[in-house]
């Protein structure tokens, strides 16, 4: 005779820790040793629930428990019954997660390997990313420093970046290992390297376009795009930590994005009473890249006129902020 059902005890990450065929009804589950499935969980009653069958089909009857049983999103209390659904259901008793699969449940087709996300990364991709990041670091260092100590500075910057990258990926790897039992190191490396490249690109591109077209708002609000990139990076890192809770990772990354934007904008506001990250655009590029046509002094001064009314209104407002900024009086 074939099995009537399969009862599985699941791990925190959703993987099966223990599976047991059910050859006859009823199936008794609880902490007491006379059960068919014994759950050594202090939040489970001696006889927590029973699965049995009658002419209507298989049902679950909750035993004498104070914590009840969770089935899907339903919560059952002591004495309640639940008729088994047409597909495998997750059952929560105390802190234990179980799954009940009946013989009559249709068998899901085999899934091809490619359809699931394979977090292991190809060496070529990683090598490319490392190469591009090294180039970016070297170029940034080249821009920052005077010609003479270039080689020494670049090697020190690279070592520093490497240490930070390893520390970052190492921490994520530990988290992955803790929650999924898999390291996913190369995945975290890829996420980090892609994120840093994207951050760099957003910063450079916004400054460049700001310079070319005289759009000071673009570098001024580049922090929004950069926060979005960082939140995406966080989302992909989290995928290798909590792969079975996509809604949670998405919500977490979205919250991180909103909170960081809010904090940054608030910080800018405190400093300059504007949500922009800087009062004016300062980044410079070679003059040949400038596209915007200069205006004459008359036009420029005419644009300053509306500020008078704005400033006057601001000056009339009573002291709204405490005297926290370090305004330096010229007084000797």
């Amino acid at each position, binding site marked *: 005779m074939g099995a009537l059902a399969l009862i599985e005890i699941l791990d925190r990450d959703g993987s099966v820790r223990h599976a047991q065929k059910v050859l006859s009804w009823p199936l008794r589950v609880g902490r007491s040793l006379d059960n068919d499935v014994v759950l050594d969980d202090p939040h489970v009653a001696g006889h927590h629930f029973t699965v049995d069958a009658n002419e209507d089909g298989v049902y679950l009857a909750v035993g004498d428990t104070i914590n009840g049983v969770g089935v899907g999103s339903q919560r059952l209390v002591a004495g309640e019954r639940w008729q088994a659904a047409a597909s495998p259901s997750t059952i929560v008793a105390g802190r234990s997660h179980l799954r009940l699969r009946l013989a009559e449940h249709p068998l899901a087709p085999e899934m091809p390997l490619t359809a699931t996300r394979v977090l292991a990364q190809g060496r070529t991709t990683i090598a490319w990313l490392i190469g591009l990041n090294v180039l970016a670091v070297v170029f940034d260092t*080249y*821009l*920052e*420093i*005077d*010609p*003479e*100590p270039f080689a020494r500075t670049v090697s020190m910057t690279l070592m520093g970046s490497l240490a930070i990258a390893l520390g970052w990926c190492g921490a994520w790897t530990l988290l992955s290992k803790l929650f999924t039992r898999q390291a996913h190191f190369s995945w975290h490396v890829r996420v980090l390297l892609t994120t840093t490249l994207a951050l760099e690109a957003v910063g450079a591109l916004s400054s460049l376009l700001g310079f070319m077209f*005289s759009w*000071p708002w673009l570098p001024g609000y580049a922090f929004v795009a950069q926060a979005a990139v960082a939140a995406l990076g966080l989302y992909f890192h989290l995928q290798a930590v909590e792969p079975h809770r996509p809604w949670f990772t998405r919500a977490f990354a979205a919250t991180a994005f909103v909170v960081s934007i809010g904090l940054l904008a608030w910080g800018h506001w405190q400093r*300059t*009473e*504007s949500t922009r990250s*800087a*009062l*004016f*655009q*300062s*980044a*410079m*590029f*070679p*003059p*040949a890249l*400038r596209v*915007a*046509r*200069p*205006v*004459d*002094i008359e036009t*420029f*001064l005419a*644009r*300053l*006129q509306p*500020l*008078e009314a*704005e*400033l*006057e209104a*601001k*000056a*009339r407002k009573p*002291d709204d*902020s405490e*005297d*926290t*900024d*370090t*305004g*330096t*009086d*010229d*007084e*000797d």
Partner: protein
Amino acid sequence: MKKPAWWSAAFVVAGLWLCFGASAQAPSAAQAASAPLPPVSLSARKVYEQARSQLVQIRTLLKGPGSQLSVGSGFVVSDEGHIITNYHVVSQAALEPERYKLVYVTADGREFGVQLLMLDVLHDLALLKAAPRTGPFDALKFRTDTQPLGQGERMYSLGNPLDVGFAVIEGNYNGLTERSFYPQIFFAGSLNPGMSGGPALDQEGRVIGINVARQVGGEQVSFLVPSEFARVLLQQGQTAPPLIASVWPIVREQLMTHQSLLTERFIQQGWRTSTHPRYRVPVPVDKFMRCWGRSQASEAGGLSHDRSDCAMDTRIFVGEFNTGSLRTSYQSYDGQKLGSLRFAKRYGELFDAESFQRLSSRHQTKPRCKEDYVERDGLPLRAVVCLRAYKKLPGLYDASVLVATVDHPTSGVQGRFDIEGVNYANAMKLTRHYLEAYGWARSH
């Protein structure tokens, strides 16, 4: 990257106000205490004895507990009890009469009430009137313009330095100071905090000037307000009713007069010619400004730069801050050794290091800015103008104009013009005056 601060040491910083308060000037007080007073000659004794009864100390007291906040000096100029002192001696009580009050103390230690009648913020003077008493007051006489002093002539400054007791300081008259926006007498003698508002007398005991400031970092370099301004103030305010409310509106009105005069004189004096081999860069004629320059070649094969800073010695003391001054500076950068990308990066970082916050948010709004590429004489410039409004001086603004040339891949000039305490129309006028001064050098 922070701008080098080498020039701040080179600046001859005028105006350590000589009002002595618990909150300020502790270091200079210590410095002053260690300096021995010069020997007093016979005529100094005579002058002091003559002026002793006309000399007073002005104290600012907290209204509740009556403890003293700051002290200065003053002197009686009419037999009805009019007293002349510095505005900065009485500024706290004048601006916040609900918190502070003024009293005067005579040389024999008696304390009486005193009222504020009139101010001359621009020359740092105040006219007070002593509470009436039965007998007439002894008054000091002003020396008139028809009796000019010769350089080197002996004079005597009186006051109560550091609140240790009335004193006479002997020194010499050295004419008017150079580059001061308003006339000031250069007195070669040691003025100390607490002597502010005291008289400086000639050998006959007539008032030549009023002690006002000394040079920080100088030795016996002190400044007096010419007595003529005190005489005019007495004339105008002799019968004025006492000022009971806060004087912010009066200060504002006088600053309005100052800013229109300042704007007019600044624009009139024009710019210096040939300041840069490639560009015309605005550097003011130093009639009432002082300019310092410096050149620095990079040792690491990077950016080399020349720098010029011009600032006015004169600033108007308002109370909790100074205003009414102009400053210009420019830096010329040469980055041939860097190449265009590196130069651009560095040039942008240097442009970014500029700050616009001068006074705390209690006194000024946060800056509002406008920026764009501006063309002058065919020369493309990046221009940023930021303005802040004064909260207690409605209609007055600070403006800062930042300019960077954007025509050359490996060199450029960045200039800055700071305008303090002008109305909006003059802020625009001065901004235009500054921007229009840029262009190509004629030889270019």
